[in-house]
């Protein structure tokens, strides 16, 4: 009976360790790949700026306005989530979550820009970005976030 208990406990510890390593390795690789793709696509879309102002452009030159949007649901890996829960004890900056939010926002904006490009737009004006947390299990847990970006895609004729 004692042995069985010991084995069961060890299984639990082993599972958590496996999840940690899996989360750490897969999460790190995924993040690197994602950042590489984000940087490349941002470079490609440099000629299609998105601005948060709506008055910067001369309205008489604008043609074909349409609402465009982009969204992404992105989640943190198991290891980094554990690190963040440790941070919650001592307080301070949670650097591992900054990259998650950064990736989410940039991805959503890129998707919006890609949609605008398909429409033949030259600029996006009055862009808004909204972030909401999607709790997986416990209340208030930020396991995953949703980022939603939208704006008005316009064609500008000089």
């Amino acid at each position, binding site marked *: 009976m004692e042995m069985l208990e010991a084995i069961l406990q060890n299984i639990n510890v082993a599972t958590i360790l496996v999840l940690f390593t899996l989360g750490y390795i897969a999460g790190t690789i995924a993040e690197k790949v994602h950042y590489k793709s984000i940087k490349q696509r941002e470079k490609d879309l440099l000629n299609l700026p998105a601005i948060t102002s709506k008055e910067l452009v001369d309205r008489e030159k604008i043609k074909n306005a349409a609402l465009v949007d982009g969204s992404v*649901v992105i*989640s943190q890996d198991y290891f980094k989530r554990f690190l963040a829960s440790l941070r919650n004890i001592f307080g301070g900056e949670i650097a591992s979550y900054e990259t998650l939010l950064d990736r989410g926002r940039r991805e959503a904006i890129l998707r919006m820009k890609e949609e605008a490009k398909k429409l033949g737009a030259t600029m996006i004006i009055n862009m*808004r970005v909204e972030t*909401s947390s999607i709790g997986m299990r416990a209340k208030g847990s930020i396991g995953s976030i949703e980022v939603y970006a939208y704006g008005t895609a316009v064609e500008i004729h000089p």
Partner: protein
Amino acid sequence: MILTNIDSVPGKKIVEHYGIVAGSTIRAKHIGKDIAASLKNIVGGEIKGYTELLQESRTQATERMVKQAEQLGANAVINVRYATSAVTQGAAELFVYGTAVRVA
């Protein structure tokens, strides 16, 4: 139907104003997608199932708003805003609103 989130439709003039129109939808998560998402939560990264679900819901809310605007006789909705709120555990409300107008 023209949708913009600025206070006019560029190149056109607003001839009539119909007030606020809104559309909303409340969606719960699908259990199959939920299991896939919890697996994805281990390694991190994008949860495509949820991205699609929320995008579909937003399209539905927008369609409802557009329908309401059409019934009023509008041909454009300006100043469109989106909002998301969590209603209960595992369900989200997607809300979209704007001003219905007729442009010419």
